[in-house]
């Protein structure tokens, strides 16, 4: 694990986990190690560009995430990698800053997907009239809208572990691959071309989460491959 592998030989098969100081990176790397996949945690532009695939995780606030990405030049790395067809997996906040803008800290985001990021309403009620808590934290189901290589071997309506107060609201309905109920239905999985993004934590969601992560490690980056 770690950067040692880079010195040992070519890194073409390496997964780069983008480090923009947003935490949660080691759990993603541990899950990859468990799956037998090498990865580097890096904030280095050239390493990100050389990697075969990119994971873009994180918890924290959209404003800080975007300013850190920009400071490190990684916003450009992500946009270039997206344009170059490199498989990219966004996790949690990684699903939000692919949108055009976020209500959180009124942040301009990467704009890979049209639409914005909103905060859950304060006074949402469940079927019994009890107030729904924000953040949306815990296990919730994801209804798959259509097939995708990353859903291979994972049942629709499987439950995943969520922790978030904001959610993406894509204008491109074709990009919504999974939906989750919390107060209302929101897009919990977004995919377009070589980009796949999940609002939940694949690295903390037991077997179905690991399966998606494992599928990503073998994904060509094409929607139907």
């Amino acid at each position, binding site marked *: 694990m770690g950067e040692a592998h880079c010195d040992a030989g070519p890194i073409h098969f390496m997964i780069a986990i983008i480090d923009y100081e947003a*935490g949660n990176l*080691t*759990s993603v790397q*541990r*899950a990859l*190690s*468990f799956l037998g996949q090498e990865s580097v945690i890096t904030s280095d532009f050239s390493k990100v560009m050389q990697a075969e695939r990119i994971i873009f995780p994180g*918890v*924290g606030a959209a404003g800080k995430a975007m300013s850190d990405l920009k400071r490190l030049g990684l916003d450009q790395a992500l946009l270039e990698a997206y344009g170059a067809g490199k498989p990219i997996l966004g996790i949690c906040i990684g699903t939000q800053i692919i949108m055009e803008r976020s209500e959180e800290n009124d942040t301009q985001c990467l704009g890979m997907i049209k639409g914005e990021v909103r905060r859950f309403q304060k006074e949402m009620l*469940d*079927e019994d009239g*009890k*107030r729904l*808590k*924000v*953040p*949306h*934290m*815990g*296990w*919730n*189901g994801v209804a798959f809208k259509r097939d995708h290589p990353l859903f291979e071997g994972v*049942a629709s309506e*499987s*439950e995943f*572990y969520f*922790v978030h107060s904001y959610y993406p609201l894509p204008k491109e309905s074709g990009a919504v691959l999974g939906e989750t*109920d*919390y107060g209302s239905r929101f897009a919990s999985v977004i995919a377009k071309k070589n980009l796949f993004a999940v609002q939940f934590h694949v*690295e*903390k*969601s*037991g*077997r*179905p*989460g*690991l399966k998606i992560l494992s599928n990503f490690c073998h994904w060509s980056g094409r929607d139907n491959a």
Partner: protein
Amino acid sequence: MLSKRIIPCLDVRDGKLTKGIKFKGNVDIGDPVEMADFYYQEGADEIVFYDITASYERRDIMIETVRRVSAKIFIPFSVGGGIKTVEDIHQVLLAGAEKVSVNSAAIRNPSIISEGAEAFGSQCIVLGMDVKRVTPSKKIPTGYEMVIDGGRTPMGMDALAWAQKAENLGAGEICLNSIDTDGTKEGYELALNKLIASNVTIPVIASGGAGAPEHLFEVLTQGYADAALIASMTHYGTYTIREIKSYLHDRGIKVRMTW
């Protein structure tokens, strides 16, 4: 809709489970990592480790345990017990825990909550509360008082006031333990859970008194809890997590049934 979480709690001292745990089939497991892995496979939604290591010098053993757990199990887990500083929180999170629970240190120094939440996010700061029933007074209007040292030391603080203060400071969740019901196996303290859970906006994990699946049903409905901590009812093989979840599922409680 969110599922209600079922969370086994493991007490650890010097890197070992405090009680050898016996399952159906008579396996005795003293290793917290194996035990966590077992519960992960069994369908636990989260795992709580409570570190009762007395000596501060031996705390690195717990960090090593956390590191080993995080290489094997891929659901959230939290670590509590003996967390005194923001640096302690940092170490536990770096080792791979999703959350850290602070208890007596937060009563003595509430700023550990705000500083921890500021540094790592509210979602990983759990407030552990040990609560004892007392005669209501001006100081303790709800009749529920904060205690520490396993209930031996009353703190002169009202439990509800403390829960609300901790929420305002940035706690992301409350693990609410009743000293009166803890270890009785006769059910959770429902009134306490309802009081706290309906007066804060963060999730509440009920703790203390679970002995049968109906106790979980009660606290997740009448007690308004979002999650239920269990220990002896599964540690000794009396019930499996699946049995508990099936019981709840059959009664209309949403729980995660496949894993």
